């Protein structure tokens, strides 16, 4: 798997390269500023990009902007964005740039190596990996969302876990229910959100998008 990295702090950049390499991924370029990152993303077209929000030269949201711009030029380019803080606003901006693998995680999550690598693979495979923090911030304002108010609390839990990028097996383990029960919940979610046709995976992504874009 070919990875482009966007991270300006040497300590973290080297750590990430070591981590990804240990799991059999190849870091084809590690850019340390916004313009270089954008260039690398467009020329290499990696299987997945791992990008820090804050990068030089402005030290604001240079990395996020590069990721959004790259996805505009290379539709569906899988990007996993890392940050010291997460904002639902940024999640929404990333999502509005079309489909395709997308992740947005707190940097802390890197310390859970297994799950982090899982998230990188999910994103590379076209799935979503949203940080639980983003989801809990969105849950705080759940009351006002129309289509989602049709879901039962349990179905919302399942949907939130889907947004984190978990598989049916992962969800069933987390909620301590059978996989069969999970897939029943998921079917209910699809029906309630008016997602009838299409492949299962596509509907899964659409459900998550509904959830995050509400």
């Amino acid at each position: 798997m070919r990875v482009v990295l966007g991270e300006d702090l040497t300590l973290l950049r080297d750590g990430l390269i070591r981590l990804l390499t240990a799991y059999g991924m190849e870091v084809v370029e590690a850019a340390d500023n916004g313009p270089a990152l954008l260039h690398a993303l467009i020329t290499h077209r990696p299987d997945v990009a791992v990008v820090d929000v804050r990068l030089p030269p402005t030290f604001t949201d240079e990395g996020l902007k590069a990721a959004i711009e790259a996805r505009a030029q290379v539709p569906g380019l899988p990007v996993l964005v890392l940050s010291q803080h997460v904002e639902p606003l940024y999640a929404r901006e990333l999502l509005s740039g079309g489909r395709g693998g997308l992740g947005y995680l707190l940097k802390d999550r890197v310390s859970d190596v297994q799950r982090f690598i899982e998230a990188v693979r999910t994103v590379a495979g076209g799935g979503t990996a949203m940080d639980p923090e983003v989801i809990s911030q969105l849950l705080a304002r759940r009351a006002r969302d129309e289509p989602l108010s049709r879901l039962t609390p349990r179905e919302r839990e399942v949907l939130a876990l889907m947004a984190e990028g978990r598989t049916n097996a992962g969800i069933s383990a987390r909620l301590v229910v059978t996989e069969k029960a999970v897939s029943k919940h998921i079917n209910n979610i699809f029906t309630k959100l008016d997602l009838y046709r299409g492949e299962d995976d596509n509907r899964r992504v659409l459900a998550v998008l509904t959830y995050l874009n509400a």
Partner: protein
Amino acid sequence: MSDSASGVRRLGRLTLRTCARGLVIAVLSVVPGIPLFVASILSLPLLAVGIGIIPVPMSLLAVRRRAGQQRRLALEWSRVSIATPYRPRPHEVSNGLIGRLQRCKWLLTDPATWRDLLWILVDMPVGVALGALPAFGIVAGVVGLLSGVWLNPGHLKQLPLFLGLLLVGVFGGPRVLKAHAQFSAVLLAPTRKELDAQVGRLNESRSQAVDASAAELRRIERDLHDGAQARLVSLGMSIGLAEQVLRDDPDLALKLLAEARESSGQALTDLRHLVRGIHPPVLAERGLEGAIRALALTLPLPVDLRIELPGRPPAPVESAAYFAVAEILANVVKHSAARSAWVQLEYSQARLIAIIGDDGAGGAVPRIGGGLRGIERRLAAFDGVIAVTSPVGGPTVVTMELPCELSLART
């Protein structure tokens, strides 16, 4: 040759500009001047029968705007800086009758109000005379000279007079305008007493700002000490222990390392909350508009945003405004039982203006030690003010004003 030609052209342009400015001053002193003065004088006796409380603040505030306009013109055209003498607007101006009475009292007890009125009166003749002088000098001078030369060649006695008028018009124009600005400064600038009062207010708000920032630093120190630092200590301990037992008891080592990882995650969470309280990262990344948009997305009620800022305020003002808006929106969520809220941000007359409203129950009362007092103190450090209107039954509207300059918008 071309140098002197361009010099003449430049002189011509400048003269024309001075004449135009003078005429503007002359017209302004009469056209808004007379109606404003008459309206103010006529509305004052109406106070005795009560109905004056509506027209008096209206006309007196219009007089202030006119005086403010003259202060700006004096600075822009003649480099005469005239400070604003007014007393600060009373806090928590409420709606309805009491609010109007408060406004009347605030305006009528301020000596600067009466000096403004006196200025408008005296400026009627003075403004017309001084303002029209440059243009009059040139026109009269040119007409006089031409008629002297062509119509009455022998009769050259008045030539020096016309020549003098022309010279005054061309070279004395800026002086004349400056004289008008200086005349205005005599009545429109703060008196010694008012300056002293302003210094007193500044001292007070400065010491409040110093106290607030000292308290803030103490809080940060305590949070770091009890939070992130303590967690890093426990993290170090877990790793140290794991090191010790790694060979003999790998299972225990594994458990300790998992604990260490958890401590590091909690330390990061603590630090994140702390950073958010000091300066939210999204404010640094996106400025005031982006930060308020991000904030609105996380609130449990829809917030309608109307933000029109042509640039970015200085960082401290941005931060004060952000925390004030955040605090007010938090109050809306907590207390008002509102179903929706709105935030309006704009920049006008060198002020950042934020208006926050909700459709809740109203009846908000700023308490001593409450959040609103905290905001008030924070804004006072920037000469900012806050006013709350919250009639029972709603809606509650909070208005803040922060004087500041905007820098050009970042792309």
